[in-house]
């Protein structure tokens, strides 16, 4: 198990979480909340958000990492450096928290619909867990995602997203 604390501002990003590829077949626990699992190629294949929350203010974004380094992951020119745990849900801004996600999907389509619906289904009093999985990769680019929402240990909803 590796891990650490993500940075909040541009000048304090955690470099151990900001490399690509990550360590192979590793689990990274970040802030005691986000657990990233990597595959044999160092790609994040699964992430569990153990207790989704939407704090304010949001974490500062790392636009260079989002728009440039995510391209290393075999992304298409039409992909965004999409957050796995969203910026609004305090997702880290280091490289470990990005997948190449189809731009329209990330900006108003399937992925954003999923994020918005999860925000609606969760509430401040519950403890909601989300498991994000990549079903298959082409190079370092995910083809399909499976996102499961739990209220405590009770399953709520699955989202299947094509990328």
């Amino acid at each position: 198990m590796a891990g650490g604390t993500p940075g909040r501002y541009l000048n304090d990003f955690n470099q151990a979480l900001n490399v690509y590829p990550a360590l192979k077949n590793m689990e990274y626990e970040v802030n005691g909340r986000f657990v990233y699992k990597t595959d044999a190629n160092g790609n994040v294949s699964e992430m569990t958000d153990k207790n989704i929350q939407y704090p304010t203010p949001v974490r500062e974004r790392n636009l260079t990492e989002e728009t440039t380094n995510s391209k290393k992951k075999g992304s298409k020119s039409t992909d965004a450096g999409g957050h796995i745990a969203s910026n609004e849900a305090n997702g880290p801004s280091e490289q470990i928290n990005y997948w190449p996600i189809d731009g329209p999907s990330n900006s108003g389509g399937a992925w954003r619909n999923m994020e918005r619906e999860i925000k609606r289904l969760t509430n401040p009093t519950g403890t909601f867990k989300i498991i994000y999985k990549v079903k298959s990769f082409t190079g370092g680019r995910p083809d399909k995602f499976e996102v499961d929402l739990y209220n405590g240990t009770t399953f709520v909803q699955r989202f299947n997203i094509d990328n």
Partner: protein
Amino acid sequence: MIDYNEILNILRNDSSITDKSKELIYEIFFVGEKLKTNTLWYGNDYQTDKKIAPNSEVYDILISFLEKKYQEEINNEVNRWNTFTLKIQPNGQCNSIYWYDLDTDKYYKLQSAKDFPHAAATNLVNYHFFDIKFKRKFTHIHWTMEVKNGEAFFEVYSINKKNQQLLIDISVNGTQLYLVEGKNLYFEGFWKYKLLEHYEVTHNGILKDVWKPWNKIVINIPPNGYLNEKEDIEYYLDDVKLEKDFFLRGY
């Protein structure tokens, strides 16, 4: 491809289902072409009975089958469907139905329509403006989106602490490309396409009975890109500001 009856046999023998004495119901809803929600539960009461995470090894086979069928029939107006419901009885008998769930379709389209200005705002701040130092110099960005004679028009200004306005040219191509209907678009083209899509669904589409007619949206975007719908979003019809009851419903 595996035949549907073989898929049913695989589902009947799903070893992750521990209680074989109860009816099992699986439902998948297609939210457009790329997003599907799916749920599995015992009994016939969705609200009260315990839901189960579908066993991916088993249900992914069914999903692949349904995705292919959905793609083949997406433009079929006669047999239009967006939902598939399957009931598996304890004796193994299966009943399934393909149907069009208007309410859920309307729900997701309404959520997307409400989200439109929010998505545009975060996209402008987070993907179009790369210089974060520049971001800190404005108090907000004033973005006017207008539809005239079927065409989309934008005007974008940043406003600083001294209330000085600076016109922002969003026609400048950034690095982010958007693939829409086989065309590569940059920021301005993508959001003009999305504005016209939003106009169409709220005027002539499934939301025409919910949404008041409009032809202009004005948003005031704070530096973090997150809008407050009660303060930062205004809809207009012919320069008359509209009451917000129609799009605030549900917030």
